[in-house]
């Protein structure tokens, strides 16, 4: 494909590389683009990436693995779109994803991205674990397979297969059981929601996943979905309707908020802790949901919620988006965004770093260990905090 065929040929040259995109909304520091924070070379900033895309498509530079890695180091956190003051800002991620698509179609992508996508093609999850093991996380929980319940509890790939995230998947299930919510799961029949696939530029695979999921949900008569992951929430809420899949989708923090305020979930036992909350990108910047989890946390007696300096739309992404929780292009350094963030949480005196996303969970578990902070800071999902407050744990 040349520049002429590129969907954003009219827009890609408009980036001035002024660098606003490197900063958070509150201007705290220059490292709020996770890839730029990690590498601190202009090529890894959003502007650098856009200029390189234009240079590649117009033939000024050739494809290389380094170029592909620069492209795929974008975690789709949306900081750049929020910060760019120019009119085309709404298309920044689209431009990057369209360029990724071009690489996907030519087959030349980093090998870890190839693995990720092939694993999904073959086994319905990026890890390549067998489909028949997807439901193993449920063992011992008495969680029911979906059969006409009020809600589908959609777990997602990370929650189904990652050891630590499975703990959260179970815990959320127990919390919902305690609140007597009518819900069921898809178990082995659950398939990848496709959110990361779409951010990686594999459009056709994404379409296939969405079509299959929509057909499955409709066949089962599913109307309401609560998701563990903000990634699933984002795809189902914003992309599935395009494929005739309009479901009533909630992220679990939104459900917990209403369960607590309705009195269906009693968190009055509470417990003492100093907690800080990390806004997940796909709930926060992508969907403007910053308060549900905070409402849940502050409803618990004994918990002191303190804020990191960059919070809400100023949050520094954990570095796990755009498939990077698996592809790991931003790992391996004290400048890895998850490690920067863990240090920030620790520096303000939090003892619990609360997350609402299984990707953030796994990224921060590793980061806290890498920073040697395990004795002073623990990573807990909001559902685990609620579970403790209801006396489930």
């Amino acid at each position, binding site marked *: 494909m040349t520049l002429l065929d590129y969907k954003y040929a009219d827009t890609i040259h408009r980036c001035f590389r002024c660098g606003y995109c490197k900063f958070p909304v509150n201007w705290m520091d220059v490292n709020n683009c996770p890839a730029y924070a990690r590498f601190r070379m202009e090529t890894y900033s959003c502007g650098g990436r856009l200029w390189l895309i234009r240079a590649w498509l117009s033939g000024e530079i050739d494809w290389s693995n380094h170029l592909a890695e620069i492209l795929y180091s974008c975690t789709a956190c949306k900081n750049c779109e929020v910060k760019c003051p120019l009119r085309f800002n709404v298309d920044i991620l689209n431009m990057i994803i369209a360029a990724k698509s071009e690489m996907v179609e*030519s087959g030349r992508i980093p*090998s870890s991205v*190839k693995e990720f*996508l092939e694993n999904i093609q073959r086994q319905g999850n990026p890890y390549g674990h*067998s489909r028949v093991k997807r439901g193993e996380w449920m063992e011992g929980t008495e969680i029911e397979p979906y059969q006409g319940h009020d809600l589908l509890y959609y777990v997602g790939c990370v929650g189904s297969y990652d050891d630590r995230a499975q703990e959260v998947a179970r815990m959320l299930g127990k919390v919902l059981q305690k609140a007597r919510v009518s819900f069921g799961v898809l178990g082995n029949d659950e398939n990848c929601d496709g959110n990361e696939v779409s951010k990686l530029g594999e459009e056709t695979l994404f379409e296939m996943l969405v079509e299959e999921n929509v057909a499955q949900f409709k066949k089962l008569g599913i109307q309401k979905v609560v998701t563990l992951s903000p990634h699933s929430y984002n795809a189902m809420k914003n992309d599935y309707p395009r494929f005739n899949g309009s479901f009533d989708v909630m992220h679990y923090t939104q459900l917990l908020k209403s369960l607590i305020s309705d009195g269906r979930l009693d968190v009055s036992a509470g417990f003492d802790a100093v907690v800080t909350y990390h806004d997940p990108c796909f709930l926060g910047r992508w969907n403007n949901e910053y308060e549900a989890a905070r409402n849940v946390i502050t409803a618990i007696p004994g918990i002191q919620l303190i804020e990191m300096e960059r919070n809400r739309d100023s949050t520094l992404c954990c570095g796990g988006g755009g498939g990077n929780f698996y592809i790991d292009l931003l790992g391996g350094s004290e400048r890895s965004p998850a490690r920067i963030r863990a240090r920030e949480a620790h520096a303000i005196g939090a003892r619990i770093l609360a997350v609402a996303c299984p990707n953030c969970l796994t990224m921060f578990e590793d980061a806290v260990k890498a920073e040697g902070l395990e004795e002073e800071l623990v990573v807990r999902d909001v559902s685990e905090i609620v579970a403790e407050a209801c006396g489930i744990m």
Partner: protein
Amino acid sequence: MDIIACIKRVPDTSEADAIKIDGSQRDIQKSGLAFKINDWDEYALEAAVQIKEKLGGTLTAVTVGHQEWNDILRRALAMGADTSIRIDRDVASEDPHIVALILKTVIQRLPHDLVLFGAQSEDFGSGQLGAMVAEMLGIPHATLVVSLEAGENKVHISRELEAGTLESYMIGLPALLTIHTGINQPRYISLGGIKRAMKEELQVMSLNDLGLSVDMLVPMMKLERLELPLQGKGAELITGTPEEAAEQLAKTLKGAGIF
């Protein structure tokens, strides 16, 4: 250059406990398994496509298998093969000699400067097929090829020996090579590519079409039984200071009758 790449469909066995032996005790249980192109064959296909992109010519992907094996041919087409042929016979657990005979018959009928195989398969791993086919065709071959440069009438290759040693050859064409993993970075095959490949025609041939009959395919080996290795108790971890650990280890070895 006319290239033929022979590919096999194998189960995804990245998880150790995915494999269970079936009732016949000569095959594995297939239900619940996902299937894919044999890893080594993917590298061979990529090598073939790269040569084609550089020198022009045709690439034909060939396989011997039942109908479900069409999916690997679609992937080969999506990767850049021009045509694909499936000889309709379920040969998954058969003697490589039989498969070689069938392939040799197909290849003989097609223009071929270069024939590529993967060095071995992920399932049975005999590593014999390529060499056998070359002998049957009467053409030179090299196995475990880790680098490959194709010219007009010859190829320059390197083979991997022990301890990272390489040996290099210049081989006149036609020739057959078995390709080792790591020779290149196989391109990703997008779903869009596969969908486009769905529209292309797959050639399916029967043994009859090849002038072969079942009686001609006499196996030289017969698979008696498949079994899983016995699971041991597990490892014993010896801890303590080097002195303590050495003492305990010596006791354990003595007790096991090692000395």
